[in-house]
C-alpha cells in the first residue's frame, strides 16, 4: 500500500461517510457541516489528482461561498429544531431501495469499464493555473463569457425573489 | 378551371355570407348555393365520340410531402357534385321559415361544409382528399353543436361529440394508411395509388385503416352508434346535410379510394363486410319499426339503406356498383325530403314523437300528398328513383350470394312496414290537440317539394342518362378492383 493509495482510501472514506451523514443527519446545520467535510475530502482528491488550483477554488466556492449561504439561510429561518417529519416509511424504504439499486447498477455496470487503459505518464502541468487559464480563455472563451450571462440572470433573479416588497399588498 | 371555380364558389360565398350580416345572410347563402349549382351544371362533362372526358386539373401545392392540388371530375364525381350542389341550396331553402340566431355563422358554415364536400368528391390526390374529408367534418360539428334542437344541452354536446370523435378516429387511421401508402409510392396521386402493388398482408391491414374511416361515416354496422343520436340532436338542416350528402362521402370513398387501391385487401375482407352490411340492413329496419321519434326512425331507415348500398358495392359486380350509385343519388333526394317533412312537422307541432301526432292529412292535404310521394319513393315503389337502385343492388348481392340477397331483400318489406306505419300514425287517423292547428304548406315549401319530387321521378323514369355518366367510371373502378 503506497501512501497515495492510503490517502485515496482515507479521503474516499471520509467523503462517503460525510456524504451519508449529510443525508441522514437530523439537524440541517449538522448536514451542512458534514457536507463541508465532504467537500474537503473531495478537495483532497483534487490535490491527489494534481489539480491544486481547482482544489483551492473548490474550497473557496463551495465551502467558502455556497455552504455559507446555506448556513446563512438556515440561520435566518432558524431551523435548528429538528422538527422535520419523516417521510412515510414506505416512501423512505422506496427511496433507499431506489438509490441503492441505482448505485448497484451503476457500480456493476461501470465495473465493466475495465477496458480503460492506464496512461503511462501524467502531465502535471495540466492543473496549473497557467494551463487552465490558457484553455479557459482560448478554447472555452465563449462559454466563459456565457457563464457571466448566467450569473447575471441568477443575480437579478435572486434579488427579485428575495427582496421584500415594500408596498403593502393590496 | 371551371372545376376550381365550382369548388371555391362556396368558400367565397361562405365569406360573403359571414360579412353580409345576420339579416341578409340567408339570401347571400342561397345565392351562393344557386351559383354553385349553376357552375356545376355548366361543368357537365362532355362526351367526345361517345367517351366521357374526365376533367382534370392539377397544381403543385405542398412540396413536402408531394401534394398536388389535383381535381378530377369524371362521371361518378359529377353525379355527386351535382347532388351536393343541388341539395345545398335546397337545404338552405328549407331553413327560410325559421328564425336562426347568428345566422351569418350558420349559413357560412353550411357553405363551408359544401366546400369540403365538393372537395372530397373532386379530389384526385389522396392528401387533398383527406384534408377535405376532415374539413367537411368541422362545420357540421359546429352546426350540430350550436344550433341543435334539443334543449338538453349536455346530452346534445355528448351526442355530437361522439359523432365527431368517431369520425375523427376513423379518419386518423386513414391518415396513417395514407402515410404508409405515401412511403411506398412517394406520391399521393390517385393514379399512382391505383397502380400500387402491395403485398397481401399490407393490403389486409391497410384495408382496415381505410375501411374503418369510411364505415363510420356511412355508417356500417357496428360503427353506427353515433348516427341516430346525432341525427336527432342536430338541427334539421344539419341532419339533411349529414344524411343527404355526408353519408355519400363514405360510400363514394369506398368506390374511389378503397376498392381500386387495395383490391386484395378488399377481396380478403369482403365476406365479413357484406355480412356486416346485411346485418346493418336488418338491424336498422327492425329498430326503425319500433321508433317513436320521427327523426330517429328516419335515421335508422337511412342506416338500413346505406347498409344495402355497402353490400352492393362490396359485391364487386357491375350491377352492384350501378345500383349503389343510383341509390346514393336517390337516397340523397329521398332522405332530404323526409327530413324536410319532419322539420315541417316539428316546426308546426313542436314535437317529433309519432305517438303524439296523427290526422295531419285532415288539416293539411297538400302536405299529406307530397309526404306520401316521398315516403313511397323511399320504400322503393317502382317508377321512383329508389326502385332502380334497390333492384340493382339486390341483384348485385344476389350475384355474390343468393342467401344474403334474400335476407337483404327483407329490407323492402320491412322498409314498407315502418315507413307506412309511420305515415299512418302521423298523417292519418283523428286530429288531436297537437295537430289540429297544422298549417298546410306555403308556396316556398311547396316549391321545394316540387323540385324534389321532380328529381325523384326523373331518375326513376329515365335512369339511362344517369348511367351513361356513371358507367365509364364504374367500369374503370371495377377493373382496378378485380385486379
Amino acid at each position, binding site marked *: 500500500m503506497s501512501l*497515495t*493509495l492510503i490517502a*485515496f482510501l482515507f479521503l474516499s472514506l471520509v*467523503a*462517503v461517510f460525510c*456524504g451519508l451523514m*449529510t*443525508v441522514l443527519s437530523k439537524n*440541517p446545520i449538522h*448536514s451542512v457541516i458534514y*457536507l463541508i467535510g*465532504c*467537500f474537503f475530502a*473531495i478537495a483532497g*482528491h*483534487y490535490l491527489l489528482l494534481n*489539480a491544486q488550483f*481547482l482544489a483551492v*477554488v*473548490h474550497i473557496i*466556492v*463551495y465551502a467558502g*461561498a455556497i455552504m455559507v*449561504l*446555506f448556513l446563512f439561510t*438556515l440561520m*435566518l*429561518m432558524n*431551523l435548528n429544531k429538528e422538527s*422535520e*417529519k*419523516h*417521510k412515510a416509511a414506505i416512501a423512505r424504504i*422506496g427511496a*433507499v431501495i431506489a*438509490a*441503492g439499486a441505482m*448505485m448497484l447498477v*451503476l*457500480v456493476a455496470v*461501470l465495473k465493466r469499464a475495465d477496458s480503460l487503459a*492506464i*496512461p*503511462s*505518464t*501524467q502531465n*502535471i502541468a*495540466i*492543473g496549473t493555473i497557467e*494551463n*487552465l487559464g490558457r*484553455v*479557459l480563455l482560448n*478554447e*472555452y472563451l465563449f462559454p466563459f463569457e456565457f*457563464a457571466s450571462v448566467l*450569473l447575471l440572470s*441568477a443575480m437579478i*433573479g435572486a434579488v427579485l*425573489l428575495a427582496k421584500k416588497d415594500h408596498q403593502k399588498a393590496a | 378551371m371551371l372545376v376550381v371555380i365550382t369548388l371555391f364558389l362556396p368558400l367565397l360565398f361562405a365569406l360573403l355570407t359571414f360579412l353580409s350580416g345576420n339579416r341578409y345572410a340567408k339570401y347571400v347563402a342561397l345565392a351562393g348555393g344557386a351559383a354553385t349549382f349553376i357552375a356545376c351544371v355548366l361543368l357537365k362533362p362532355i362526351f367526345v365520340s361517345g367517351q366521357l372526358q374526365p376533367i382534370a386539373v392539377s397544381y403543385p401545392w405542398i412540396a413536402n410531402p408531394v401534394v398536388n392540388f389535383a381535381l378530377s371530375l369524371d362521371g361518378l364525381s359529377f353525379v355527386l357534385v351535382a347532388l351536393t350542389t343541388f341539395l345545398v341550396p335546397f337545404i338552405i331553402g328549407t331553413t327560410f321559415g325559421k328564425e336562426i340566431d347568428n345566422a351569418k355563422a350558420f349559413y357560412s358554415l353550411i357553405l363551408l361544409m359544401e366546400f369540403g364536400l365538393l372537395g372530397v368528391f373532386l379530389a384526385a390526390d389522396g392528401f387533398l382528399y383527406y384534408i377535405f374529408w376532415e374539413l367537411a367534418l368541422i362545420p357540421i360539428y359546429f352546426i350540430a353543436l350550436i344550433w341543435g334542437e334539443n334543449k338538453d344541452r349536455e346530452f346534445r354536446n355528448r351526442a355530437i361529440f361522439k359523432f365527431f370523435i368517431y369520425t375523427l378516429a376513423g379518419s386518423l387511421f386513414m391518415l396513417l394508411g395514407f402515410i404508409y401508402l405515401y412511403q411506398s409510392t412517394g406520391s399521393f396521386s390517385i393514379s399512382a395509388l391505383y397502380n400500387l402493388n402491395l403485398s397481401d398482408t399490407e393490403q389486409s391491414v391497410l384495408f382496415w385503416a381505410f375501411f374503418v374511416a369510411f364505415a363510420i361515416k356511412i355508417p356500417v354496422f357496428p360503427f353506427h352508434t353515433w348516427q341516430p343520436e346525432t341525427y336527432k340532436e342536430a338541427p334539421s338542416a344539419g341532419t339533411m346535410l349529414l344524411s343527404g350528402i355526408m353519408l355519400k362521402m363514405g360510400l363514394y370513398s369506398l368506390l374511389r379510394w378503397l376498392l381500386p387501391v387495395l383490391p386484395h385487401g378488399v377481396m380478403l375482407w369482403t365476406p365479413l363486410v357484406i355480412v356486416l352490411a346485411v346485418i346493418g340492413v336488418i338491424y336498422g329496419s327492425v329498430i326503425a319499426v319500433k321508433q317513436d321519434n320521427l327523426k330517429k326512425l328516419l335515421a335508422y331507415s337511412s342506416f338500413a339503406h346505406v347498409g344495402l348500398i355497402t353490400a352492393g358495392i362490396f359485391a364487386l359486380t357491375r350491377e352492384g356498383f350501378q345500383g349503389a350509385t343510383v341509390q346514393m343519388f336517390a337516397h340523397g333526394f329521398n332522405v332530404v325530403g323526409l327530413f324536410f317533412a319532419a322539420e315541417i312537422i316539428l316546426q308546426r307541432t313542436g314535437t317529433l314523437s309519432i305517438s303524439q301526432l296523427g290526422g295531419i292529412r285532415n288539416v293539411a292535404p297538400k302536405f299529406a300528398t307530397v309526404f306520401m310521394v316521398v315516403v313511397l319513393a323511399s320504400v322503393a315503389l317502382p317508377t321512383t328513383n329508389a326502385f332502380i337502385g334497390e333492384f340493382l343492388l339486390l341483384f348485385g348481392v344476389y350475384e355474390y350470394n343468393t342467401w344474403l340477397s334474400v335476407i337483404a331483400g327483407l329490407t323492402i318489406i320491412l322498409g314498407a312496414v315502418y315507413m307506412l306505419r309511420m305515415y299512418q300514425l302521423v298523417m292519418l287517423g283523428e286530429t288531436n290537440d297537437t295537430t289540429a292547428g297544422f298549417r298546410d304548406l306555403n308556396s316556398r315549401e311547396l316549391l321545394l317539394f316540387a323540385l324534389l319530387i321532380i328529381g325523384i321521378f326523373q331518375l326513376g323514369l329515365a335512369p339511362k342518362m344517369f348511367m351513361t355518366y356513371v358507367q365509364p367510371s364504374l367500369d374503370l373502378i371495377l377493373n382496378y378492383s378485380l385486379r
Partner: protein
Amino acid sequence: MESIFNIVPIQYYIFISAVLFCIGILGVLFRRNSIIIFMSIELMLNAVNLLLVAFSTYHNDASGQVFVFFVMAVAAAEVAVGLAILVTIFRNVHTVDIDELKSLKN
C-alpha cells in the same frame, strides 16, 4: 511524472463518484426538508466534479477541469436562486418541508 492511475485505478474514481452521486440521489428521495434535498443535489454535482477531474487527469486533458469551473459557476447560480425561492416560500408558510407544499395537488 508517473501517473497516479498506476496506483489508484481510474475505476476507483468512477466508483467513489458513483457512490457519492447515489448518496445524493438518496438524499433527494429520502428527505423532506428542501434545504437538505438541495444539499444532496450539490453533493451530486460534486461527485460529478470529482469524476471530471479524474478523467481530466486520466486523459491529460485540461478541458475536464475547465468544465468543472462551469459546473461551479452554475452551482453558485443555482444556489442563489434556489435559496431565494426557499426564502420566499418560508416567508409565506414558515416551512421548508416539500411534502407540505400541496396546494397544487388536485
